[in-house]
C-alpha cells in the first residue's frame, strides 16, 4: 500500500508517447479485424457480378473490369430457384408471426408479473438453448408424415418457430423490462383499463425493440438449412434448394447463390445494430 503513491507519477509518464503508440496499434488491430470480416463479403460480391463466361478467368482481378448481373440473373432464372425463394419468404413470415403471437405474451408476462413458477419457466426457456436443433428435425419429419404436413411450408415454419420461440420470449421480456411499469400504472390511474394501458402506452414504447426481435426471428428462419433439408423434398426453401443443387451446379451458380442469400442478412443487421447488444447481452442474463 505504501508503495502505491510512488507509482502514480510512473503511470502518468506512461500516458505520453506510449499512449499514442498504443492507440495507433489499437486502430491497426481494429482495422485488420474489420478487413477479415469485410474482404470476403467484397470478394463474393465481385464473384457474383462477374459475367458467367469470365467465371473461370485466372488470376482473378480484385478490381472488376466488368460489372454484370448476368450471373445473378442466371441463378434467379435457374429451375426452382424463384419458387424456393418465395417459399423461404413465406416460411420466414409465418415463423415471425407465430413466434410473436405465441412468444410475446409470455415475454410480457415474465417482465410484468411476479408469479409462482416464473423462475422455473425462465430456466426451462433458457435451457432449450442447450439442446442441438439437429435433434428436432428428424423426429418431426416422422410426425409430419403422420399429420400430413410433410414437405410443406407450414411444417418448416412450425419447426422454425420452435427454434425462435425461446429467443422471442427472452427478448420481448427484456424489451418490456426496459419500458417502465410506472407509465402503465399512471395510464391506469387516468382511466385506462390494463389492456388499454398496454396498447396505448407500453406497446408504442416497446415497438422498436419488438421490431428488432422480429427481424432477428426472420433471419433465423431465412438462414436455416438443416431442418429445411430434412423436412422438405419437392418443396424446398431457398437454402435447401441451393444445398441440394451444390454438387451439380457450376461454380458461378454458387457464387450468385451465396451472394443472394447473404445480402438480406447484411442489410438486416444494419437496421437492428442498435439492438444487438440488448438482444444478446440480455439473453445471457
Amino acid at each position: 500500500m505504501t508503495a502505491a503513491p510512488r507509482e502514480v507519477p510512473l503511470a502518468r509518464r506512461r500516458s505520453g508517447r506510449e499512449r499514442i503508440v498504443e492507440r495507433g496499434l489499437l486502430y491497426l488491430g481494429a482495422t485488420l479485424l474489420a478487413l477479415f470480416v469485410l474482404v470476403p463479403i467484397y470478394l463474393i460480391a465481385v464473384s457474383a457480378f462477374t459475367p458467367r463466361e469470365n467465371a473461370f478467368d485466372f488470376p482473378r482481378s480484385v478490381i472488376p473490369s466488368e460489372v454484370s448481373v448476368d450471373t445473378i440473373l442466371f441463378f434467379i432464372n435457374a429451375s426452382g430457384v424463384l419458387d424456393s425463394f418465395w417459399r423461404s419468404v413465406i416460411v420466414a413470415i409465418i415463423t415471425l408471426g407465430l413466434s410473436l403471437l405465441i412468444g410475446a405474451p409470455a415475454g410480457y408476462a415474465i417482465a410484468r408479473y411476479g408469479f409462482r413458477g416464473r423462475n422455473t419457466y425462465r430456466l426451462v426457456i433458457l435451457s432449450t438453448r442447450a439442446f442441438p436443433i439437429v435433434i428436432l428435425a428428424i423426429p418431426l419429419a416422422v410426425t409430419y408424415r403422420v399429420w400430413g404436413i410433410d414437405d410443406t411450408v407450414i411444417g418448416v415454419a412450425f419447426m422454425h418457430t420452435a427454434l425462435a420461440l425461446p429467443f422471442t420470449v427472452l427478448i420481448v421480456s427484456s424489451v418490456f423490462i426496459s419500458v417502465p411499469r410506472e407509465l402503465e400504472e399512471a395510464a391506469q390511474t387516468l382511466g385506462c383499463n390494463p389492456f388499454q394501458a398496454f396498447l396505448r402506452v407500453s406497446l408504442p414504447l416497446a415497438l422498436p425493440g419488438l421490431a428488432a426481435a422480429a427481424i432477428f426471428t426472420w433471419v433465423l428462419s431465412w438462414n436455416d438449412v438443416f431442418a429445411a433439408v430434412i423436412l422438405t423434398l419437392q418443396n424446398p426453401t431457398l437454402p435447401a434448394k441451393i444445398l441440394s443443387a451444390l454438387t451439380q451446379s457450376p461454380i458461378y451458380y454458387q457464387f450468385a447463390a451465396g451472394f443472394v442469400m447473404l445480402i438480406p442478412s447484411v442489410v438486416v443487421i444494419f437496421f437492428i445494430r442498435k439492438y444487438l447488444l440488448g438482444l444478446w447481452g440480455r439473453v445471457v442474463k
Partner: protein
Amino acid sequence: MSARLGWAPYALLLPSIAFLAIFFAAPMVQAFALAFEGADGGFSFTHVDRMLGDASFRSALFTTIALVVLVIPVQFALAMSMALVINARLKGQGLWLYVYALPLGISELAAGIVWVSIFTQTGWLNSILMGLGITERQIIWQSGESPWLLIACIVIAEAWRATSIIMIILVAGLQSIPREFLEAADIYGATTWQKVRRVVLPMLRPSLQVALILRTILAFQVFATVIALAGTGIDVLAAEAQRWATDIDNDNVAAAYAGLILLLSLFSTILFLVLLPTREEHQA
C-alpha cells in the same frame, strides 16, 4: 388488483408452453424412441449398432470433435480482440460494432460459399498468392487428399461466420464491468495486458462461460459450411444424420446420430459448468 389478475400470467404463458411441448419436448423424446426402437416395438440397440458400424462413423465423430477443438479457441481469440476494440471506444464505435457483428446474420451455407470463392482452385486466394509471386502454381486447398488442409479451410470459414455471436456476448459482459475498476488499475500503473489479465478476464467469466457453452453446442452441429467447402470429402455428424434421414431414408439411424450430437452437447455444457464455475450460479 393483482389477485383479480392472478390467472393472467399463466394464461399468457400457456400458448408458448403448449407449443414448445408439441414441437420441442415431444420430438426430443421421440428422437430417443426412434434411436432405440426395435422391430417388434421394444427396446433395441440395433440402430445404435448400425451407426457405430457405419463406415463413416469414426471419421465423422473424429472430424466433428477436431473441428470443435480447433474452431472454438480461434473464435474466442478473435471475439475477445474484437470485444476489447469495441470496449476501447474508438472513433466511430457504432460502425466498428456493425462491421464485427455483420456475419451474425449470415447463414452457414452462404458463409461456406463465400469461402469457396476464396479457396477454389481458380479462386481469390490462389489469384492473390500468385499475383504477389508467393507461389508459382495454383494450390488445391479443397482436396479430399489432404483432409487437414480442408479442415483448415472450414475452421477459417467458421471463424469468419460465427465469431460475432461470441463477440456480442463478450461486449455486453465488458460493458457491465465498472469503469472505476479499470481506472483504478490505470492509477496503479497497470499495463494493458495486466488490465486484461487481472481485471477484465476474471470479471468476464460468466459471459465467457455462456458464450463457450452456446458456441460449442452450435459447433457440434456444423453442417452446411462443411458441405459447401468439402462436399462429401469430409464426414461430420450432422451431415451423417442428414444422409441417413434423406438419402438412405432410415430415420432410426439418423435419430441415433442426432442423439449422439445431443449427448456431446450436454457433456460439453456440463464440462464448462464444472471448469468455469461462476459466483452467479451459487446465488441462483
